[in-house]
């Protein structure tokens, strides 16, 4: 599944200072749908190079990290249960850096 992942507000520093990642996330099997919960695990394993605790807390994003799926607040689409489709754009923005 092709996805565009974007990191902002300082989170890009955790993945080699690259803000936009075009990635191919493979599904575990044909039946399963990819959810945000799965994607977070994938991101932590494959993209986050340092200080993963700045990105995640437990199996969720760290409080203070905003998530937009296709420009839409993930709080409207079920947060971790949001299912993803091919070519979706997921944005992670930290609010925790200095203002």
């Amino acid at each position: 599944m092709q996805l565009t992942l974007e990191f902002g507000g300082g989170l890009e520093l955790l993945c080699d200072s690259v803000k936009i990642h075009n990635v191919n996330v493979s599904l575990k099997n044909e039946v399963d749908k990819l959810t945000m919960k799965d994607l977070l695990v994938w991101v932590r394993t494959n993209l986050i190079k340092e200080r993963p605790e700045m990105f995640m807390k437990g199996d969720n994003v760290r409080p203070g990290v905003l998530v937009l799926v296709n420009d839409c607040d993930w709080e409207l689409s079920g947060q971790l249960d949001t299912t993803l489709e091919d070519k979706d754009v997921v944005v992670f923005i930290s609010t925790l850096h200095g203002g």
Partner: protein
Amino acid sequence: MEENHKKAGGRLCCLCNRRRAALKRPKTLEQICRECFYEVFEEEIHQVIVENQLFKPSERIGIGASGGKDSTVLAYVLSELNRRHNYGLDLFLLSVDEGITGYRDDSLETVKRNEIQYGLPLKIVSYKDLYGWTMDEIVKMIGLKNNCTFCGVFRRQALDRGAALLKVDKLVTGHNADDIAETVLLNILRGDIARLSRCTSITTGEDGPIPRCKPFKYTYEKEIVIYPYDMLTYAYFKKLDYFSTECIYSPNAYRGFAREFIKDLERMRPRAILDIIKSGEDFRISMSTKMPEQGTCERCGYISSQKWCKACILLEGLNKGLPKLGIGRSRGLDNNHKKDVKQSNGTKNIEGKQCGSLDF
């Protein structure tokens, strides 16, 4: 657009009932569309400005600009509202150069771009010019402990001195609701009654030469962060340019915990942030509590509750090679349960955000 909103389950904006919702407002839990969001976001700030009479026509207003998200959004929104509602204000950007290589020099580049983008004149005051020391030099001397104290105390004064140079009537800072809730908690945790009682005021220092106000007092950080970001795709021309790297010298763990605690509370109950501010506002200080008396520094004339202001004490320490001077609480062991808050003035940088932001 239709395609983009498939995840929202097709819910309509509860304000216009026409477009699809794109955001859940933390303050109200309303699900609203992008267009309505920009409208209510800006309109609410306008209402805060009007209801609290933050400005008078023809005033000169300095915007404390760090290049970070809050002050960048503030500069943009304020110049928009000034135009839209004819406030009649002369707006200026005021930045402090602490002299931190690889951090402040980069964020100042952002502010310089903002100067051009918004057409607002910019003034930069530097620690080097004002105090003879850059933060890089201070850290070289004192190490990474207590450096935030120096930076916070110096920044507060630097902003006032910059404001005086610009001849502005007032300073505005980008402190948002999350920042203020965090500061309320910190002041409670530290027993700093003097600061607790003033940290929720939307305007402070009205008795001093340059009052400061916080138009984002009721604005959630989440919305400030989304405000420029969403525009990336929706309306490219409005895209705001800001800088988001943490200060390289910022080990302020205590504040970090408070910050994370607030964010945890917000996730469970977003209203918690406004409620903490409300609690801070409604605290009553007992009559028997001794409050610090405001005077002026004998050395530089800056407001101070002691003989010398904190910046002068710290500077004296630096110049004499005694950097511990003025660090930590000067009240000593408080065995006799004195309700003495006098020495807490300026002892710590508790009102500045972890970094990059401007002091109250």
